[in-house]
């Protein structure tokens, strides 16, 4: 039986080195590009013929748009709707990253700390930029809420900073752990197929069920990631 962790190995496809840094185009990069290409193609095809009464294909992007728009409105208010493209892209990027990883011989870049952590870091920086633009120096109040005595600052400020920095960390760990565990489980069960011979039908059937479940998990995790990003965005827009 092969090692279930092998599927997470990164293989360079086009080696690139710039200023001593390795920025090779890897299988992970390939699936990031594929996530962009597939989502763009899907939207392009679905929105090719736009009509007032939407066709089935046209209603797919519209439903996603409505869904994310409502999600953002409910969690961060109408004021946050100006940042809708960012949240919308984030949901699609994570959802397609998760879903593409479910295809056999594919790669799940959302199971990698660097990719998801990077995305969470981008979201964090985005929120900080919004907060600073809106409140200028007042944004620092995030780390020292009003009504707290100044004497408690040495205690509160580090706690608030840890809480603030743990947001991208928790986002990353949640998504990476879910994706990793799901794929390990699929791989282990798939490993039994050849070992059991004719009886391998059972793990195949079981794996088929798990794949359906994993599709659900992939979308659910993208949803959770987006909801939490909306909540963090709400903090930046409305204050702590």
């Amino acid at each position, binding site marked *: 039986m092969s090692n279930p962790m092998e599927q997470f190995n990164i293989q360079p496809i086009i080696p690139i080195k710039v200023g001593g840094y*390795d920025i090779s185009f*890897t299988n992970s990069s390939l699936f990031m*590009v594929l996530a962009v290409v597939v989502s763009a193609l899907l939207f392009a095809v679905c929105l090719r013929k736009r009509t*007032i009464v939407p066709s089935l294909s046209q209603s797919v992007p519209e439903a996603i748009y409505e869904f994310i728009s409502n999600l953002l409105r409910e969690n961060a208010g109408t004021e946050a709707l100006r940042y809708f493209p*960012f949240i919308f892209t984030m949901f699609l990027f994570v959802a397609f990253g998760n879903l593409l990883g479910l295809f056999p011989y594919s790669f799940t870049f959302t199971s990698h700390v660097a990719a998801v952590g990077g995305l969470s870091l981008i979201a964090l920086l985005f929120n900080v930029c919004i907060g600073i633009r809106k409140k200028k120096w007042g944004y620092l109040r995030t780390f020292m809420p009003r009504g707290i005595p100044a004497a408690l600052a040495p205690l509160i400020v580090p706690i608030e900073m840890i809480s603030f920095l743990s947001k991208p960390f928790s986002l990353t760990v949640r998504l990476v752990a879910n994706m990793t565990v799901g794929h390990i489980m699929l791989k282990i069960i798939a490993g039994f197929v050849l070992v059991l011979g004719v009886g391998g039908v059972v793990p195949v059937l079981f794996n088929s069920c798990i794949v359906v479940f994993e599709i659900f998990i992939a979308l659910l995790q993208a949803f959770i990631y987006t909801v939490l990003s909306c909540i963090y965005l709400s903090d930046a827009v409305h204050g702590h």
Partner: protein
Amino acid sequence: MPQLNPTWFISQFFWLCICFFFMLFLMSKVFIPKIKDIMEQRQRKIDDYLVKANQIKEQAEESLKKYQEALAQATADANNALDISRKEMNAYIAKKQDEMAKKLNARLLEGEAQIKETREKALKEVKNVSKEWALDIVAKLELTKIDAEDIKKGVEKVVND
């Protein structure tokens, strides 16, 4: 765990930035405006239909109001006409009743006069016949003490009583 291998961290972050920001550009400049545009068009269309529906509703309400006013007017006119007709009819009936009563009265008087006349005639006739019969009886019984004048007086007394 390959996930924790830092060799590919920079590469992954680099390609993540390229892919994510390119996708963000695509979505915000191409696809989101398209979806937004069609949804706004749809909303405008729905709003137009709602405005039209409201206008039609107002027109219908106005028509209903006019119809009710016309119906009330027609009912009032009909009631007036009915009242006038009723009054005319009552006047006509009263007039006819008066005429008929007068006619009947005249006929009654005429009938009574005729009856009186006939009665008087009949009494006269009875008197004459009674006188004749009395004269015949007296003649036949040869009652000489009774003359015609006595018979006449006697008959008149009996008839008048």
